[in-house]
């Protein structure tokens, strides 16, 4: 079957590739475009480790049809740091030791980024709700919650 062309903006750069008709966005990012920020966890929408922003909204890349991203803005953790300068959320995750094995971290960062863009001063409950679709099997939730709350108070946390 013929491959289909798809073009979108990935972390601020225009990218184009060809995909199988039923390809998901995660495969397209990782295998097609070499962005290894989002990870493949469950493939079922349960673990949240493939969370990316599509037009600013969090979506699970493993369940997103790649061709539905035509013309849209995709943001992953690969685009969060500005050169050597970490995004405030990334800095807060480091300061609070919020990455243990690190596998859930890209999803957690992206879920937190989506939260802070809409709600710059979230309550603890709102943070818990925002990462409720992300599983950390090291069960290190407390440092992650603390890091997100700390980043919310840091200058520049809303930087896109």
């Amino acid at each position, binding site marked *: *079957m013929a491959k*289909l062309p798809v073009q979108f903006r990935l972390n601020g750069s225009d990218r184009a590739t060809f995909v*199988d*008709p*039923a390809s*998901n966005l995660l495969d397209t990012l990782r295998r097609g475009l070499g962005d290894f920020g989002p990870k493949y966890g469950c*493939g*079922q*929408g349960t673990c*949240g480790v493939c*969370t990316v922003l*599509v037009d600013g*909204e*969090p*979506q*699970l890349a*493993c*369940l*997103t*049809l790649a*061709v*539905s991203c035509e013309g849209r803005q995709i943001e992953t953790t690969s685009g969060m740091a500005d050169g050597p300068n970490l995004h405030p959320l990334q800095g807060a995750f480091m300061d609070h030791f919020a990455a243990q094995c690190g596998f859930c971290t890209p999803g957690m960062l992206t*879920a937190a980024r*989506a*939260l802070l863009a809409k709600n710059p001063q979230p309550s603890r409950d709102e943070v*818990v*709700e*925002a*990462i*409720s*679709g*992300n599983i950390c099997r090291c069960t290190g939730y407390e440092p992650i919650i603390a890091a997100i709350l700390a980043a919310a108070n840091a200058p520049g946390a809303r930087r896109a």
Partner: protein
Amino acid sequence: MLDLRTCASLSEAAGILSGDRQALLIGGGTLVMRDVNEGRLTEGTLVRVTDPAFRQMSTSGARVELGAGVSMAMVLASRELAFLHAAARAIGGPAVRTMATIGGNLFAAAPYGDFTVALLALDAQIVLQSGYGSGRAVPLEDFLSARERGGQGLVTAVQFARPQNPAELHFRKISRVKPKGISVLSIAAYLPLSGGRVTQARVAYGAMAPTPIRARGVERALDGKPLDQAAIQAAKQAALEGCRPATDAIASEWYRREILPVHLGRLLAGEPR
């Protein structure tokens, strides 16, 4: 291999779905892409709809109509649909809610499909389009009982009357994982009070049968009664009528049957979970 058809109009999609048994609508992808990723779905045609009518919301009048492609996040962003927010928030985390649609929820196998439970308690109708004709309204309950047979066409929209007093619609999802987990069961109850008595109660369950179901026994037990201890006791006794819960990874059939009357009683008494 899977093919993909992108349809700019609802009738085009309905035509494909009616004519091809191997065609499957893909909405937000939270159900269909799971099967693709698992290798359970490898042949046929995925049908994608880009018609703006599929995501239209008409929420201001007494009759609410929501396109089947409306997402849980869109429901949560609408102040006029506040009475449905508890049910929409029960679906997944924020990323799932960006994607998951109310139309897709109608097809979610137990123990999923919690939003549909609330729609059942609202006595919703769905608009079903087969072939290139116009859509026809079907009671949600009839649609669900025929769901497993499949091939009914394209669900284009959901319609229901806005509850006169939104506080009379109650929703609870019982799960063992906090803050979010898959349903052990869910209950939606529309309990309009008139002169202190319940009139035309509508109660629905999720995960207590292969599809969401209405709890007719409970409705009969409550109708015309004040919500007092005696009525709640009668409702609890009738709670399991028509239930055929499954044993799955979340809970056993026995456990579901044991806790349903408990949670129904708490909901009716206005007690916390």
